């Protein structure tokens, strides 16, 4: 299977929509075909070759296809839109709506991610619907908005509206978070490594829960975690896990 490496050659001056760049469609293309792939942008008529150096190498036939982006891609939006198989690796920052509506495979961001990580775009009612999204840095607002399946890991901080209207799936945030967390959450799991005070009008009091799930989910020191359920204002039964080690933010 092919590994496609796109190395950013010159800084982007305007946002570029990468939703047309699908790994499953790129996987069988030659370097030249990828080079000539047109992109949506305010700047007319740009293609991958205008800004990226393209390298395609073939490796283990049994492995999944892989797309590697090298450089700061904060101006690239909707990368991994409807991604359904294979691995996408971003060595640098990525823009908004990364992994929107993805249904499988994995996206690994070795940097920061913009708003709407794993969230829906346009008029779509469902966000991330499968696969794994991992960000080593911080993420913007509305991480996991309307998420239905899959796993999101943000090792740094996340912005406002985290897990809002989440339907299912798991979101794990290692750092601090913004306002309106889990607003309208119906089901699903939110794991916060820093304890916060959830509004009592929307969430139940935290309880100690004996469950081997904590170990399976990879929670460190499983005995310290407590769980709240909500958003009760809409009859939701989602769960928010937090370690009971004191409040770090209000």
């Amino acid at each position: 299977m092919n590994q496609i490496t796109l190395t950013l050659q010159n800084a982007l001056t305007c946002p570029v929509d990468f939703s047309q760049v699908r790994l499953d469609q790129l996987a069988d293309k030659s370097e030249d075909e990828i080079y000539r792939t047109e992109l949506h942008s305010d700047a007319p008529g740009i293609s991958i070759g205008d800004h990226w150096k393209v390298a395609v190498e073939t490796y283990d036939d049994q492995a999944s296809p892989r797309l590697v982006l090298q450089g700061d891609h904060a101006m690239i939006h909707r990368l991994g839109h409807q991604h359904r198989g294979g691995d996408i690796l971003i060595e640098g920052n990525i823009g908004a709506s990364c992994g929107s509506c993805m249904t499988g495979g994995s996206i690994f961001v070795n940097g920061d991610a913009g708003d709407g990580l794993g969230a829906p775009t346009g008029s779509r009612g469902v966000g991330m619907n499968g696969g794994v999204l991992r960000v080593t840095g911080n993420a913007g607002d509305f991480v996991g908005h309307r998420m239905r399946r899959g796993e999101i890991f943000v090792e740094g901080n996340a912005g406002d509206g985290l897990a809002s209207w989440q339907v299912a799936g798991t979101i794990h945030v290692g750092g601090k978070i913004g306002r309106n967390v889990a607003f309208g959450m119906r089901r699903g799991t939110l794991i916060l490594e820093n304890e916060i005070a959830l509004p009592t009008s929307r969430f139940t009091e935290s309880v100690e829960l004996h469950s081997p799930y904590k170990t399976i989910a990879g929670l460190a020191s499983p005995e310290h975690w407590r769980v709240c359920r909500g958003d009760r204002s809409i009859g939701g039964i989602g769960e928010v896990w937090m370690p009971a080690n004191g409040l770090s933010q209000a």
Partner: protein
Amino acid sequence: MTNELKNEPLKIAGVPIEATFAEAFDMKATRLILTAADRQWCDEAAAAMCGFGTSVIACGLEIAVERTLSPSETPDGRPGVAIMAFAVSSNEMEKQIPRRAGQCVLTCPTTALYAGIYGGRKWHEKRIPVGKSLRYFGDGMQISKVIRQTREGIEQSVRYWRIPVMDGEFVCEHDVPRIDAIGGGNFILLGRSMESATKACRAAIDAIREMPGVIAPFPGGATRSGSKVGSKYPALFASTNEAFCPSLKGLVDSQLPDGVTAVLEVVLDGMNFDSIAAAMNSGITAACDASGSDGLVGVTAGNYGGKLGRHHFHLAEILKGASS
């Protein structure tokens, strides 16, 4: 009446081994990992799940603990056991496993249940429902979690069900793989006394107990009620194997050599031919070493002339290298 063991060129610790074979059959099997917060809850749940699971003749399943697992060997880092279950048909397996999991494991405090054979549908297409059936006990409050993980070198997404119960949550996998396996491997210990047969049998089971991929589903690993196919009563499809009953020697065409007063049969089910063969080797060797020729008249195996089962475990081949 037979007065001597037939064709017995092989001896272990002076005990003659008859040159015959054990006849075994194709079965369906699975392995489950049962864990709990402590060893006592774990063992109690395992005992319940494996209860009434000695023979497919009437139990539906042949099921037993394969081996105990340390916390480092289980998916959730708690004490556990590996349980293996064997059935004649996939339908019976799909009926029995959820039923036993629901009544014997879900009910036991702190327990959880996982697949003991790794790999999702991509590797094992045939599945047995566990959480797929038990989740409804959650009455809508159950939670499904798909977690990407790597076990034994296989990276896969595993669906777990978390069912709220009064001590917290019961966690189990959605389904577990079903594989083709072998049931009915056996060896028969011909004792000079009940005590010597028991001693040999217990030594054999001790040797087999922690071996991977094989179980001895009868009580204590052995049975005294070896059976033959059919009966004079039409309703029964198995009945006592009178050829091995000491009390009937002289009345029927007995297969017992002189001096035998008690016979015990160790029945083995295994994941494959090699696992059963290895267990038979270890078990027979341990039995002979424990009781010697003073306690055992010989060791033989049960078969139906090779007409019913396609797996034949020839004692002479299995014990090659074990003779003394």
